[in-house]
């Protein structure tokens, strides 16, 4: 018996450190799949872009190392600055409206007062399931100045046709497409967050005499803050990376949407039309930086408000 105990003890003593060692080595092992993908799909391309942005390749003369010259050019490039300014404007106008709509829909659905709530929920969400390319083609047809339904309707009523694709309306028309696509998506996030609020809070509030509006204002909205912040962050990134919609509308409104209409579109045309891959890498890198700063600013203001 003692021998076996001793053996057992010895065994366990031997097992002890090795188990600990195993658990130490297991950690990285568990993280490895993520880490490998993260390095391969994120850090490596990022590093490559950074590397590319330090060179200049010419059709005549080949590749030369230019240091930060590309960045100096980019920061003074009016086409890039306009592109970034335009998406910033887009963000300021489009995102609050879209999130407000999503919030209203989520609250209405959560109130339980709507008939056919499931059908409505699905109906609002379905546009998100439509690929953005298809959505843009569809809206491009609807916006058409000659044969689009809005133009035809206003012609029948002897009104001037709405110029959806004109220079002054274009940003609004784009905002409308993006809102149509993403209201449902944001609504679902907010709605899911609403469903996690314990019902006894509502009961307690009702006992205290709070009506539906008061409950929405004092309980639901504060509880939604993290979810709203999440949707806001997604929207920052989405707005600054605006590409598909302008790229497709460019075909029907080439005079309004130039190849540098948004910063992302500019990077694309630099690389694939102008064969300026290095400069395109610089522009992408700077755009990434803008997005990081904008996201961080959003987080910072939100947190500060919470502390207050």
């Amino acid at each position, binding site marked *: 018996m003692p021998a076996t105990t001793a053996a057992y003890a010895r065994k366990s003593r031997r097992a002890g450190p090795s188990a600990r060692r195993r658990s130490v080595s297991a950690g990285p092992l568990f993280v490895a799949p993520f880490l490998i993908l993260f390095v391969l799909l994120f850090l490596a391309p990022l590093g490559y872009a950074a590397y590319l942005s330090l060179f200049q390749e010419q*059709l*005549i003369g080949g590749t030369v190392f230019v240091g930060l010259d590309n960045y100096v050019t980019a920061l003074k490039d009016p086409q890039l600055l306009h592109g970034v300014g335009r998406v910033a404007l887009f963000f300021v106008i489009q995102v609050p409206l879209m999130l407000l709509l999503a919030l209203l829909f989520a609250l209405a659905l959560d109130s339980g007062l709507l008939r056919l709530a499931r059908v409505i929920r699905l109906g609002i969400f379905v546009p998100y399931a439509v690929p953005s390319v298809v959505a843009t083609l569809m809206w491009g047809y609807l916006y058409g100045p000659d044969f689009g339904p809005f133009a035809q309707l206003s012609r029948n009523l002897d009104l001037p046709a709405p110029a959806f694709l004109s220079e002054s309306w274009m940003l609004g028309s784009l905002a409308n497409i993006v809102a149509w696509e993403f209201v449902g998506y944001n609504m679902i996030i907010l709605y899911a967050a609403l469903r996690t609020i314990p019902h006894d809070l509502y009961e307690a509030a009702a006992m205290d005499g709070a009506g539906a509006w008061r409950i929405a204002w004092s309980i639901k909205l504060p509880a939604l803050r993290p979810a709203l912040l999440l949707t806001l962050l997604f929207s920052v990134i989405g707005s600054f990376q605006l590409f598909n919609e302008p790229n497709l509308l460019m*075909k*029907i409104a*080439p005079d309004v949407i130039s190849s540098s209409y948004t910063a992302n579109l500019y990077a694309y045309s630099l690389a694939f*039309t102008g*064969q300026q891959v290095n400069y395109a890498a610089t522009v992408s890198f700077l755009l990434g930086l803008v997005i990081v700063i904008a996201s961080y600013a959003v987080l910072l203001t939100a947190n500060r408000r919470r502390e207050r």
Partner: protein
Amino acid sequence: MPRSFVRTSSMSRRRFLASTGAVSLGVALAACSGDGDSGSSSAEPVSQAEIDKAMKTPTELTFWTWVPQIQQEIALFEKKYPAIKVKVVNAGQGVAHYTKLRTALKAGKGAPDMVQIEYQAIPTFTITNSLLNLAPYGATALKDQFIDWTWGQVSGPGGEVWAIPQDTGPMGMLYRKDIFDKHGIQVPETWEEFAAAARKLHKADPDVYLTNLAKNAPAAWHGLLWQAGGQPYATSGKSDLSISVDDAVSKKLGEYWGGLAKEGVISTDPDFTDPWYAGFNKGKYATWLTAAWGPSFLSGSAKSTAGNWRAAPLPQWDAAKPVSGNWGGSTTAVTASTKNPIAAAQFAQFLNSDPASAKMFATQQFFFPATKAVLADASFTGAAPEFYGGQKVNQLFADISDTVSPEFQWPPFYDQAATDWTETVGKSFADKSDTVAALGTWQSRLTTYAKKQGFTVKES
């Protein structure tokens, strides 16, 4: 990713070694033969024995093309050379196709052996040394089979042959006879008459425009410039480039079209879009200034107007000397990176010069032929489609083809020139702003770009 950097530098070193090899070989040959002509030594012709051997070796070739049902013509080639299999890849059309091609060429793998390429894009790919010179593979012998100006478009100053012409697009005018008759408009023979007709027609019916000059169609603009005798680009050597897209000829063209757009008597809708197709079907445009591929394209796209269309030459600047320009058409080129240069070069030549294959393009794909033989073939020129009221449209365009000037050159960065055109000149049509000023902006944008890319630019 320093690897790709190393790779490009080693590649250029290899190219350097190859060229010095060629030079020393040339020197050696010159020493032997005693004459000083060593320039063409790098284009040493491939012997018939080598060609025969390559064509009997089992090979798979990849061909990027957007031509529909090209499998029919390829079958003819594979029947003649059973050892060679050709795989067709459709990588998109026009810009999408070139973008993918450029990416594959840059990546150093995944590029095809043969590739569909439009005339205006050839210098864009020769400047990056991406195309194989087909002259040593027997292409020079084909010169006389092709329409002179098309051969001028595919050959280089040193006798290089960069591609084999497949189809062409000499420009003419398709017009709605019924609309012309209704408003008593004669078919305009000069641009002056054309402008008068545009004003008259739009005044008579504000819903109809004499023509649509698309604000996104730099290729059509270049075609009209070609007709007007413009010489916007000229290269000498590899790095000397002259750009003059706002010279007197261009300004004349800009004043003319910008003026009509400003008056609002022509429309400037973007072409090949849904509203544009609808415009043809609903009679918004009374003419289409198009190319020889236009007639069959239109008969497929505007079915509801069948029988009302007729074809005529472009209006002229000088009625005494009728001329035209080219818009579109394409060629088959071989990439410099191909592992099977002989078989690929033979394919490019066979596809477009074999009598059966060349004729098939005209009868199956309705391409406007680039070979003299098909262009003179009575079964081609005699066709009298009902869509054009039985008019012999092909014959008309065959006659126009003879009047295309062989001088016109393309810039070594056509994509950039085209994008910049749309954002300057095309935009001025839409905004009804000063087109001549827009030509100046186009000129300065191109000059800046060219200098940035290392060219020595001469402005005139």
